């Protein structure tokens, strides 16, 4: 599996990681060798095996539709990097 710099740049953008040129080169090599290692999975024929997301045999776990008290907004807003009144504040979102 060969991984290009562009691949790493694209993935880093998807993951919202601002990597330096150096980091990109570094991760490019490491990602390549890790993927080479995990490629061993391709030697198995799993076409008839159902994927497994949950190890437990649980199903239909619900919650009752009854209201539980909410948080005091100040308990979370006090640690916000930026707030205005009772709003969280972020750099302008352009639509």
């Amino acid at each position, binding site marked *: 599996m060969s991984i290009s710099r562009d691949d790493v740049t694209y993935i880093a953008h998807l993951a*919202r990681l601002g990597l330096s040129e150096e980091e990109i080169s570094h991760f490019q090599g490491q990602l390549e060798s890790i993927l080479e*290692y995990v490629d061993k999975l391709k030697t198995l024929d799993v076409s008839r095996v159902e994927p497994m997301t949950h190890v437990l045999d649980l199903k239909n776990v619900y919650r009752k539709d009854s209201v539980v008290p909410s948080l005091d907004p100040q308990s979370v807003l006090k640690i916000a990097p930026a707030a205005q009144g009772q709003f969280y504040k972020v*750099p302008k979102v352009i639509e």
Partner: protein
Amino acid sequence: MNLHTLTALELRSRLDCGSVKPQDILTDLRSRYEAVEKKVMAFARPPSFEYRDTAVAGGALKGIPVVIKDNICSQGDRTECCSRILEGFVAPYDATVVDKLKKSGASIMGKANMDEFAFGSSCETSCFHPTKNPWDLDCVPGGSSGGSCACVAADEAIAALGSDTGGSIRQPASLCGVVGMKPTYGRVSRYGLVAFASSLDQIGPITKDVRDNALVLGVIAGHDDHDATSVDTSVPDYLSQMQKDIRGMRVAIPKEYFVEGMDPEVRHAMMEAKAKLESLGARFGEVSLPHTGYAVAVYYIIATAEASSNLARFDGVQYGARQMAASKDESALIGMYKETRDKGFGAEAKRRLILGTYVLSSGYYDAYYLRASRVRRLIKEDFDKVFREYDVVLTPTSPTPAFKIGEKMDDPLSMYLSDIYTISVNLAGVPAISVPCGLTRSGLPIGMQVIGRPFGETDLYRVAFHYEQSTSWHKQKPKL
């Protein structure tokens, strides 16, 4: 008085008869902390030694101080997962395990150091400092619950909680010579545990001996309405049920775990442990877990994929240190995301986020994530099959004793392979315990792992308890 050297149950009997007060234990732990913490550096932040009584009538841990890993939320305290990106995050709520500990009367002393977001097997990726192995300060304590294990091993704590996604309780427990349990997936609520890989994570106790471990698990286990993956089955009385002897218990040795390249001292310790268990009446047989060789690959796909999604929320919007980008190439918002995450995450976290994002991305999902989810089923079926004939599986916990600090830091694959014996257990969702079973010639602990069937924690405690009773490894202490 050396209260800090005692176990929780030993302390409890002193508390019960009134010869010791809860504050005495904390005061004693304070002096121990002051004496050894500089060397071990097991804590993320200085703990609190003030006693607060939170017990609801007759709590099982009344007066016992417990340390929790820095990825478990406790209301009003910093929970930073030893990552810069969570700097200043104060949880406005208690994790279910913390709530249960408080109600049982335990005092939450503080938070233990860990690999950043539990990404690591050495405790070196903490943004604060690396923790040292109390048995050899040049060595790692293992990880990611390295701080939790080191503080118990160094008698800086009576008991601790860790979390285990691929071996993060058992491997450091083994390297530090303490007892660490990864319960069955669904046995302990994950509510309030900062998620690494949701389908693999479990919280478990780290203690000085098996009895304490059973005591703490009894407190934290059980169904929780806040965790849809916690299972609604009753919690056995582990402490009394583990008394039953192990005569006739069927113990499997998987041949795939005892291969060339295993550290000879580890192999030797395992053979001795096997002989000991046989002398206690256990019956051994060799089995095959044929998909063992794929476990690390499956794990690094599934765990990083889930992590890439779980850690997306750390973006500088609601908490943590926000960074703005200097460059104007992108919108200020995207710049903020990237800069915050670039400055906030360490190298190992970035590496895993890149890998996890890659294996889910368009065009690669089927080849990696989906395929890994299929192989995961095969790994679980391997265990199902073995447990039809055997009660437990015995393996080493780690292929080697503690390694030197820095030794594997930039060799991710070799670091990942140090979890080779523990990872399958998380993929299969079964419980496993690591118990001290020897010391190397250079004086480093060796641990053995006992794996059980789903919700078979009692079996694990039985084997571990009777083994412990007939050996003295758990009584060995590091010289600090």
